[in-house]
């Protein structure tokens, strides 16, 4: 369950628990195996288009690829129905990434000496396996099904949805049902970065230290329904998704009536020789349960009540400075209910239900316990800028700089910078050849990560990752 694992494991350092800090080095290695999905050579084979037609550098979509996706995996050229398959087309793609990496974390809790030490490890690894199957069933009806494994071979379903597009002949009426990626055009599933500290957008998974709300993660695929509309040339895009507040987990295991909404809109416009620019915004507003009935001391699935709210809002932009250089900008203002800020809510990563601030020994339910005096909504602001220098369709150099800053801690007296994050990534990706049959890239990346107050002793936690690998999709 790679993206799930990634999104949750990525948050471990943000929680001040020594146990997680101990595991961090191992987590780094695991994270190296965490990679986004969604580059689809099967579509290239179907339509006879090179990877570069749809991807600025695969898996990152360009405007044409985004339009193809928005049309329900259709080019709208009367060659979309499955009967137009050419002999090389089989609607399944495999992707995996063997690599060598060096991982370092500055402070890991140990049982001896001062109780913590630096840990560095190197070695070969591979990034699990994504199996992507999708495409049209009939004109304007398509599916996407993505079983994905971690490096142990354990599978989960990262995406499983059916979509109905161009209803009533209008590109403004497209509906998707199932488990799907939220419709931010800055897509973590399609990021070019792969290393342990760089594979995930921190902002897509950020949770303040001690916070129990895991349901506001933009980067996790969600279970629900989405309406999406776009103009014929895809310059204007709007979408609204309604989904369970379960962080994409199936079987409705948490709240009884907990839903979240994700709204996104963007507008692209031509800026002459600079290229086509896109600006937009998003808002994720939801509520999730904080109180559960217990059965044998464990939370009872589906019993969650006491919904509390959270929100993530921000700006996103894609700016081109000519044909070879672009900047992705993403910002976020996040806010959680004080209840989440005190640790309520998370029965996925915290099945024992421990709330250190409230009830260190008992379940983390708000029944009769209430909030500590002065507890407030944790709020934060963050942003990242990702740059792509597309030297040629075969060679892309990239960097990302990301920052998250707490603006209000839930518990008064907490250091104001606890949980602040800095993350820097730089690398390049080279495709020795480009065809419409398969994707192959040599990938080299270095990333560095720091969390204020995240080390076992309360000082800063930092880690770095160097990765050299090969990315295959075929």
């Amino acid at each position, binding site marked *: 369950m790679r993206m799930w694992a990634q999104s949750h494991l990525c948050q471990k350092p943000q929680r001040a628990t020594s146990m997680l800090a101990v595991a961090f080095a191992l987590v780094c290695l695991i994270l190296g195996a965490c990679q986004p999905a969604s580059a689809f050579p099967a579509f290239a084979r179907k339509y006879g288009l090179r990877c570069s037609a749809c991807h600025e550098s695969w898996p990152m979509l360009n405007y044409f690829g985004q339009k193809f996706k928005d049309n329900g995996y259709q080019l709208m*050229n009367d060659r979309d129905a499955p009967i137009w398959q050419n002999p090389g087309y089989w609607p399944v793609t495999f992707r995996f990434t063997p690599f060598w990496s060096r991982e370092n974390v500055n402070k890991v809790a140990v049982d001896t000496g001062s109780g913590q030490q630096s840990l560095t490890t190197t070695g070969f690894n591979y990034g699990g396996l994504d199996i992507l199957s999708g495409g049209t069933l009939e004109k304007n009806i398509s599916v996407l099904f993505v079983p994905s494994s971690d490096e142990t071979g354990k599978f989960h379903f990262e995406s499983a949805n059916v979509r109905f597009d161009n209803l009533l002949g209008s590109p403004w009426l497209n509906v998707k049902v199932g488990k799907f990626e939220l419709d931010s055009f800055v897509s973590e599933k399609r990021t070019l970065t792969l290393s342990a500290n760089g594979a995930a957008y921190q902002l897509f998974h950020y949770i303040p230290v001690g916070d129990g709300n895991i349901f506001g993660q933009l980067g996790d695929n969600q279970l629900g329904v989405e309406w999406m509309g776009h103009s014929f040339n895809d310059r204007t895009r709007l979408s609204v998704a309604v989904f369970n507040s379960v962080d994409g987990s199936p079987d409705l295991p948490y709240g009884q009536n907990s839903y979240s909404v994700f709204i996104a809109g963007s507008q692209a416009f031509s800026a002459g020789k600079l290229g086509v620019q896109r600006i937009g915004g998003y808002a994720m507003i939801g509520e999730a349960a904080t109180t559960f009935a217990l059965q044998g001391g464990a939370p009872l699935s589906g019993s969650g009540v006491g919904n509390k709210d959270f929100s993530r809002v921000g700006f996103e932009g894609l700016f081109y400075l000519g044909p070879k250089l672009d900047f992705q900008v993403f910002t976020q203002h996040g806010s959680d209910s004080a209840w989440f800020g005190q640790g309520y809510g998370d029965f996925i990563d915290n099945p024992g239900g421990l709330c250190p601030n409230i009830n260190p020994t008992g379940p983390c339910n708000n029944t009769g316990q209430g909030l500590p005096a002065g507890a407030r909504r944790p709020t934060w602001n963050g942003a990242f800028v990702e740059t792509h220098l597309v030297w040629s369709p075969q060679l892309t150099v990239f960097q990302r700089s990301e920052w998250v800053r707490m603006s209000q801690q839930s518990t008064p007296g907490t250091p104001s910078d606890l949980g602040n994050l800095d993350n820097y990534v730089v690398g390049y990706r080279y495709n020795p050849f480009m065809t419409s049959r398969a994707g192959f890239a040599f990938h080299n990346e270095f990333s560095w990560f720091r969390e204020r107050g995240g080390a076992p002793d309360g000082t800063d936690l930092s880690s770095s990752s160097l990765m050299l690998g090969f990315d295959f999709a075929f």
Partner: protein
Amino acid sequence: MRVFKSVYGCAGVLSLALAAGVAVWGQDAPDTGPKARLALKATESHIGNLTGHAADGKTDYRRYCAGCHGDYGDANGENAVWLDPKPRDFTIATFKCRSTLTGTLPTDEDLYNSIGRGFTNSNMPIWNTLSPQQRANLVAYIKIFSPRWDKEKAGEPIKIPAETAVTLDSIAHGKALFTKLECWKCHGSHGEGDGPSASTLTDSKDNPIRPYNFAAGKDDSRFKCGNSNQDIYKIFMTGVDGTPMPSFADVIQPNDAWDLVHFLRTLQINRHGKENEVLSAAHGVIPPYVDKNPAPAAPENKAPGSGQ
């Protein structure tokens, strides 16, 4: 952060070396291959106020076009073998969709519109996500592949008169023209692309080619070169070069051409439009055409026995 130590340092140096290597290796040019390197001419395109530059279109051509049209524009991209119809061969500069007379080069705007419109019933997508400047640059770039662009000027766009009213009479006249000009031989009497000659047709490269099936599709059906009535007018007045579809500019008067357009629209039986509304009002029956203003007959054309 002690980055450059032991293994890490070696790996960093290795990474940099590889980066430098691929940066050189990955130069943006189809420089190798059996054919001589293409010199980028200072070719331009002009579409309204836009000026496209071939040099600026090179990367986009490789990114979006070369897979089918080939690095050298000779329709030998790696996907060409799979495609039907085959991609356009830019080295011979014969283009289907033009506003200019048959046999002439298209205008830059014709090529620009073709890129943004795509080609129905083919693998050519709708590239309207590209910016106007990108499309203009691509137009300039594809002009470097054929010497025709150096030797000839684009043809003059044909004049399209204002559309005449859609009437049952105009539809009937269009049908008469459809019969007289033998359009049915390829397109079939009901426009379903099944005329007696349909199975024998090939394009200028001897690839089998199918005549357009008017009856397929619904309101979203498109013609190869556009979907407006003006586009249909242009198609048969300029011809579709490189295919058996000829130009009828020399045999149809402009107003008669509109009548043919109106009839052709009625062959799109699943399309909602004024032509089918007029036909429905007549219970779907097109009356025989009666020429109300016959040209005066020349004496030698008089029927036998006339004047007796």
